[in-house]
Every structure is written in structure tokens, then in C-alpha cells.
């Protein structure tokens, strides 16, 4: 085990608090993940990556920086990774899945701000996030009001480039978003000094598409009649997708998928064929937010999909390949990202239809809608999800919770009762 203390000190972390965080994280991880039975062998790679989440990967970032590369941190699936990579940058999804530094965060943010926003503030203020502290630029976006206003404050600590994401899917909105994609490209070129050429962008479009294809392959295989991999493991992989090296990660996912195909052929799985199948839908679950999946799979149900930003909302569409010049490619990028069915859009009917489609394709017995407490877009939209699913006869459980562990027992009761209700 290497020691990274020197590196963390240079990044300005609070070493004592950071050590406490890592200890808690590894305890939480092993209690949830190590207790799983019959995991695929290829999970070893992802276990390793998570064990080095603040170690080896951060070291790689420092090495990249030493070579003159820029590290760009993001919080949202609307930020085109292709452009970051084409500008020779490293793209990193930032920490926002744990209750860390909330007291400090609440000096800036109202108490009733969602956990995700409080978390990225808390990590920064408590000096716990080596990713944020490695970033040369943080990219925000105008999705929900909470994030939008929080970035203004976050900008005091480190530079934030805010992309304007529109609120409707009109043609005008799309051209606005297209202009924001162009503006982001220029900002990246100015930051990195690397011109985004057709050749470079063509290559990175492929890299990111391949990552999406690998994840989609996983998302398809996991839902086999005898699920070959747990929902917790699949979620972990979808989480790691945000910060690992994209090419290495894609290879690891494909290797895992080869093993899963083998398992399916041999009827090997993590659950029996008559296990209750759950589709999760709603807010993203950033590392280490495994609370609900751990409860769900603890009741011996299996999660067969995540209709979420850390899930298929991040992977489902690819950018059209085969464009000739940069302008065409930027248009293709705009088209792809503009299809994202985030609850900050109004109306957001595509999402409702997609949940139904997923529940049917994945043969889910029921859907659990997960919203982070105080996340207005998803909590309010959950009513429309409920109505839509009711009209299709698909059972739904709506949950609203935060990153704390106070309500675990009450959540267990609800989730178990839901399972009793939908058991075939």
C-alpha cells in the first residue's frame, strides 16, 4: 500500500479529516460490497479502482498535470466529455455523494438545500476532495436553481465555467445549447492551449461513445433472467465511469461483460430467476451513496437498472460518428446531449415514457423512485411518474431521503413492504 500523504498535503487537504473520511468510506464499502455473494471475477478491477479512489487516480492526475494537461471537473451529464478530451484535458466527475462538511456548507447555503449541492460545497470547504483541488477548471451548468445559484458562490473558491442548459426542448432552446457547446469549446481551447481539431474530436467522440456502448452492454446483460451481477456492482461501475481513465475503463467493462455473457450461458447468477426485480429511477447516486440499493438488495431483491444520471441517462444515446468537420461534430454533440431527459426540463414527457419502456424491457416487478430530499425537479416530477406508471399498472414506491443514515430503519420497512406487495 503506497502512501499518498505528501500528495494530499500538497493538494491542501485536511489530512486528519481526510483520513477519517477514507476510513469511513472503506468501512462502508466493505460492509456493503464485500458481503455480496458470487460476484464476477472481473469486479476485482473496480474494487481496486475504488480502493485507490483518492490514491492512485489522484496520482495519475498529478502526473497528467506535470505533463501540462489540464484537469476539468464536472457535476453533470450535460457537460460534453468529448470536448474536454479533445482539448487534451482530463475529465473528472466531482465528489458529491456523502454527508461531509455540511456544517461548513451551511454557512453558505440554506439548510434546505439538497444533499448533492451541500456535499460538493462541504467537500471543498472541509478540504476533503483531492479531485476538486486538482482541477484547473470546474464546469457548472444551469440545471436546477440550487446548483445554478450555488456555482456563483463556489466560484469564490475556484474558477467555474457555467454552461447554460435550457429548460425546454424547443428549437430556440437547442440553438442556445449549441452556442453554449461552442462557447465551452472556446473556453477549453483557451485553457489548454490545444486546438480542438476534427481529427482530435473525431477520436474522442469515439472514445466516449465506446465507453457508453460498454456501459449499455453491461446494462443489458445485468437484466438477464438470472441476473449475472448485482445492482450494487452495476451501480458502482456506472459511478466509476465518471472519474476513471475512459479507455482503460471501457476495456475493463467489456472484459466484465465477456464474463457476464459466459455466466448467462451457464445460468450462473447472483440471484435466482424468481427474484423480485426493481428498476431504480430518479436522482443520481454519486459515490458513496449506496444507501437505498444496499437496503433493496439486502431484502434479496435485485436492481436491474438505473434510470438516472449515474445510469442510463448518462449512457443511452451516442454522438453520431462519421461527421467531416468540427462544426458538424459540434452539431452532433449538441443533438446527443440535448436528448437528455433531465427533470429540469419542462415538460419532460420523454422521461416518463422511457421509465415505462425500461420497466417493460427489463421485466421489473416494480419501480422505486428515488429523490434526494429538497431536490425540487425530481420530487415534483415523481407525481407525474406515479400517474404514468399507475396508468400502465406498474407498481411504484416513491422515496425521498438524504445522505444520512437516520432513516434507514423506516426505509427498510417501506422497501420490504413494497417487495411484499410486488412479489409474484
Amino acid at each position, binding site marked *: 500500500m503506497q502512501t499518498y500523504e505528501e500528495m494530499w498535503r500538497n493538494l491542501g487537504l485536511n489530512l486528519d479529516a481526510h483520513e477519517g473520511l477514507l476510513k469511513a468510506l472503506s468501512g462502508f464499502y466493505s460492509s456493503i460490497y464485500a458481503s455480496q455473494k458470487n460476484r464476477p471475477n472481473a469486479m476485482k478491477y473496480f474494487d481496486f479502482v475504488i480502493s485507490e479512489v483518492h490514491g492512485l487516480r489522484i496520482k495519475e492526475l498529478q502526473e497528467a498535470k506535470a505533463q501540462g494537461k489540464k484537469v476539468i471537473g464536472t457535476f453533470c451529464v450535460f457537460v460534453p466529455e468529448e470536448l474536454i478530451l479533445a482539448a487534451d484535458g482530463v475529465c473528472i466527475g466531482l465528489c458529491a455523494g456523502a454527508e461531509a462538511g455540511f456544517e461548513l456548507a451551511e454557512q453558505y447555503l440554506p439548510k434546505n438545500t439538497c444533499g448533492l449541492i451541500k456535499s460538493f460545497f462541504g467537500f471543498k470547504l472541509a478540504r476533503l476532495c483531492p479531485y476538486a483541488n486538482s482541477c484547473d477548471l470546474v464546469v457548472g451548468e444551469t440545471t436546477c436553481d440550487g446548483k445554478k445559484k450555488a456555482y456563483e458562490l463556489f466560484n469564490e473558491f475556484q474558477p467555474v465555467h457555467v454552461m447554460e442548459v435550457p429548460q425546454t426542448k424547443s428549437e430556440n432552446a437547442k440553438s442556445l445549447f449549441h452556442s453554449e457547446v461552442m462557447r465551452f469549446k472556446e473556453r477549453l481551447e483557451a485553457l489548454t492551449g490545444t486546438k480542438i481539431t476534427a481529427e482530435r474530436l473525431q477520436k474522442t467522440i469515439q472514445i466516449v461513445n465506446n465507453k457508453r456502448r460498454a456501459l449499455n452492454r453491461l446494462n443489458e446483460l445485468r437484466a438477464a433472467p438470472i441476473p449475472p451481477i448485482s445492482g450494487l456492482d452495476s451501480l458502482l461501475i456506472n459511478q466509476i465511469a465518471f472519474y476513471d481513465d475512459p479507455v482503460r475503463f471501457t476495456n475493463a467493462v467489456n472484459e466484465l461483460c465477456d464474463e457476464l455473457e459466459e455466466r448467462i450461458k451457464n445460468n450462473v447468477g447472483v440471484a435466482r430467476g424468481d427474484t423480485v426485480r426493481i428498476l431504480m429511477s430518479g436522482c443520481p447516486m454519486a459515490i458513496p451513496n449506496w444507501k437505498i440499493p444496499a437496503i433493496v438488495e439486502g431484502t434479496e431483491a435485485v436492481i436491474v437498472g438505473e434510470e438516472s444520471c449515474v445510469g442510463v441517462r448518462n449512457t443511452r444515446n451516442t454522438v453520431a460518428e462519421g461527421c467531416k468537420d468540427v462544426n458538424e461534430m459540434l452539431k452532433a454533440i449538441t443533438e446527443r446531449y440535448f436528448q437528455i431527459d433531465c427533470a429540469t426540463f419542462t415538460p419532460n414527457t420523454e422521461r416518463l415514457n422511457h421509465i415505462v419502456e425500461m420497466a417493460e424491457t427489463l421485466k421489473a416487478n416494480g419501480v422505486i423512485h428515488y429523490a434526494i430530499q429538497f431536490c425540487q425537479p425530481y420530487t415534483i416530477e415523481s407525481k407525474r411518474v406515479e400517474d404514468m406508471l399507475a396508468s400502465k399498472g406498474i407498481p411504484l414506491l416513491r422515496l*425521498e431521503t438524504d445522505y444520512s443514515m437516520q432513516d434507514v430503519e*423506516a426505509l427498510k*420497512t*417501506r422497501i420490504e*413492504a413494497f417487495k*411484499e406487495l410486488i412479489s409474484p
Partner: protein
Amino acid sequence: MKIAGLDVGSRAIKLVVLQKGECILKKEVATGFDYVQEVQTLLEEIQPHKTLVTGYGRHLLAQHMGFEHVTEIKAHAKGVHNLFAEVRTILDIGGQDTKAISLNPNGRVHSFVMNDRCAAGTGRFLEAMATSLGCSIIELNALALRGSNDFSINSTCTVFAETEVISLKAQGANPADVARAIFKSIAQRAASLLNRLSINPPLCFCGGVARNKALVQELKAMLHMPVLVPEQPEFTGALGAALLASMT
């Protein structure tokens, strides 16, 4: 053959023992810190052939004593259906949570909702309110039955509701009227939870809090439907657990 149903709640442990389908024992003890020990003592002289556990403590008991477990939702549905086959809606208010359950005509759970993590409107809330009026829950109920409909308590938070009670006291309000306002506020909260389901009459109100007649009256008035209360409403979960145990 003796079959036991246990409902290990946040405030009390309830036990129902069945023999040849007849209830031969009902017993309730307060939930202490070591409820595994309490349950062992409770079951010592009965020596049931089979025990099924429900309630907040079900996981710990399942782990320590190897009992099968079900949620309170399923247990209450079973218990209530056994007592009143016509019931289509259940309101269960216990020590720290409130559950609204809608049943199919055959008694199976159709859907359910629970209160959020906050304990407002639960048995715990009632205890806090009684304390702030300087009386017991039994006295609070008796007071409320004589109270007028002049006041209301609007806060849904236990702490703020206490502040409201204190300020009503300071304004010289009659304790009976304040007591009634307390039950009205619980009924309102329960009704809003129930209204998140599509509810059908009749309704069965169970759980320890259902012993308060003042609350039953407020609910009837607010929901405009018949409200049935079992003779010992705190035992429906344990009864349901015992019935489910005898089925498997």
C-alpha cells in the same frame, strides 16, 4: 400447537398467541434497550412452536432468534382483515410512525404510505404534547372530549407544536380546548397521509394511539367515513403476525 405473533415496536412489544386458531394470550410490555432479552423472557413460559415477528425490531430478532419476519404493513393488513373482513383502509399510528394502507377486497395490500422521518402525529408526539400540558395521555384524551373546537395547532413539527401549545396556555386558553386542538392536528396529519392513497370505506384505525377516543371522533368528522377500532387496537400487528405464521 402454539403459534406466536410478535410486534416489536418502538415503544412496546406486543405478543399474541394462537392455539387451534383461537387467541389464547395477548400481552404487552414496554420496549427497553435489550429487547432480545425481553422477548426471550416473554416467550419462556409459552414455548411456541413457531414465532413470526414484525415491527421495528424484527430484523434484530430474526437475526438472534431465527424467527421469520414480515413488515408491519403486511401484518396489520392480515390482522385487521381477520377482525373486520369488510375493511378497505387501515390507519395505524404507533409510537414513532404512521402508516396508511389501502386493501383490495380480498384483504391484500393494494398500496401504502408512511410518514416521513419526522415523528409529528405519532404516539411520541402525543406524549410530548401531554407533557407540555402537564398531564398523561389518558388525561389528555379525557380533556379533549370536553373541549371546544375553538383552537387549532398548525405546526407539523413536534418542537414547534409544543411552542404553540405553550403560547396557547400563555393566552389563558382552556386546557380542554388545547387538548382537542392537539388531537385535531394529529387527525389532520393522518387524513393528509390517507388522502395520498385512494381510500375506500370503511376504515380501521389501529395501533396504540387508536385507544384515544378523542382522536377517533376527529377522524370520523374529518374523513366522513365509518371508523372501526378493534377492542385492543395495539394488538392487530401481533395478531396478523400470528395468523401469517399459522399459514406457512
